[in-house]
């Protein structure tokens, strides 16, 4: 952030109602908490249908609470993107569709100009994304452009194996071939593209191939979900940022032996749950800011 410490800005903004300090010295381009020309929100890993009260006793209320918080923002985001695992998986195709429909109805209450969705493995891996596409009408991978940034949504979840696949990599190669090298790119995907921790299934087997294709572009940022906690990593110049969940946190690698859902802390309700505000613009790296769910 230009001229102001980002944490300081967070304090100034106060979260419940974000105030964008475009008049602050050194913040001429500040239009979002990361200091970009615009901002968007990333909401991830809703796992709608999950109902283990010892982990989240407010499993039915956390998403509505987040939606209300977004709607209360003074500075509306340009768009919201849901980065997968909208629903908790189920073998029952009817229940899967019902859960997705409920998510669709709840998220339709977002008072923002545009909402983008894509699937996680809980949504898509058991039927190759059939129910997801029926409900949300989105393809599993797509691109869009917004205020000078090229957004690429990659699907590493609709195959039961955590892969992108040759066909999609060829699609990505063809898409990138149309861009100039100085084109800023934001990649949105569910699983980490880099090999974060394959021992816990936190990887995309052929994710490195996508990273290799993106390497020639100097301004690339990847936002993803899946791991249910905040993590920031770089593969060379490419930044990778994982998002918080809106249902249950997962303990980071190194803190527990096995992949573990973090139990509810009554002394700090909703701890580890939240969403993300991203400041973005064509002349800067997209910068995330985590926003906790408040009790």
């Amino acid at each position, binding site marked *: 952030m230009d001229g102001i410490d980002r944490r300081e800005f967070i304090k100034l903004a106060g979260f419940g109602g974000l105030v964008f300090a475009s008049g602050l010295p050194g913040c001429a381009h500040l239009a979002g908490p990361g200091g970009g020309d615009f901002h968007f929100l990333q909401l991830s890993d809703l796992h709608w249908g999950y109902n283990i009260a010892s982990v989240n006793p407010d499993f039915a209320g956390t998403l509505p609470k987040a939606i209300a918080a977004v709607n209360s923002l003074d500075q509306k985001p340009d768009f919201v993107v849901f980065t997968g695992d909208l629903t*908790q*998986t189920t073998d029952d195709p009817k229940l899967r569709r019902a859960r997705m429909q409920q998510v669709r109805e709840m998220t339709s209450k977002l008072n923002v100009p545009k909402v983008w969705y894509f699937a996680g493995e809980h949504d898509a891996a*058991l039927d190759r994304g059939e129910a997801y596409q029926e409900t949300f009408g989105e393809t599993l991978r797509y691109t869009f452009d917004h205020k000078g940034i090229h957004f690429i949504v990659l699907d590493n*979840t609709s195959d*039961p*194996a*955590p892969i992108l696949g040759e066909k999609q990599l060829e699609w990505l190669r063809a898409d990138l071939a149309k861009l100039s090298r100085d084109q800023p790119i934001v990649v949105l995907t569910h699983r980490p593209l880099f090999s974060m921790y394959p021992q816990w*299934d936190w990887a995309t087997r052929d994710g490195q191939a996508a990273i290799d294709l993106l390497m020639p572009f100097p301004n690339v940022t990847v936002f993803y979900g899946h791991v249910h906690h905040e993590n920031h990593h770089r593969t060379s110049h490419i930044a990778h940022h994982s998002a918080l969940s809106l249902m249950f946190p997962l303990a980071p690698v190194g803190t527990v032996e096995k*992949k573990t859902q973090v139990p509810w802390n009554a002394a700090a309700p909703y701890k580890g749950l939240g969403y993300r505000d991203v400041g973005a613009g064509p002349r800067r790296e997209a910068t995330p800011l985590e926003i906790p769910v408040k009790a």
Partner: protein
Amino acid sequence: MERRHFLRASVGFACCAAGVEVVALAAPRRIAVEARKFQFTPSEITVRKGETVTFVLTSVDFPHGFSLPDFGVRKDLIPGMVLEVTITPANAGRFHYLCDNFCGDGHDRMSGILVVA
């Protein structure tokens, strides 16, 4: 003669020509590992450091994955097929194996621990 039986019959001991050294050449220990929604049996396997073991892998109900990333091992377990993987752990430790093909609601807990003592 079936190769497995031949090995059992002939390689229990090998005497060197000079007759001064006896070397045990036992065939690798075979450990059956069965995958089914949403568990591996066994879910914990203990081997000795330097011991060569062969995992005999099967799946009952889904093309589960068997991934042992620390040893560079991963296989797709097609129901009805038997796959074998042989490793010789060089270092002690606790290593995860997991299903890495999404198989349903319990997929995230379908894992086990290889203990190398």
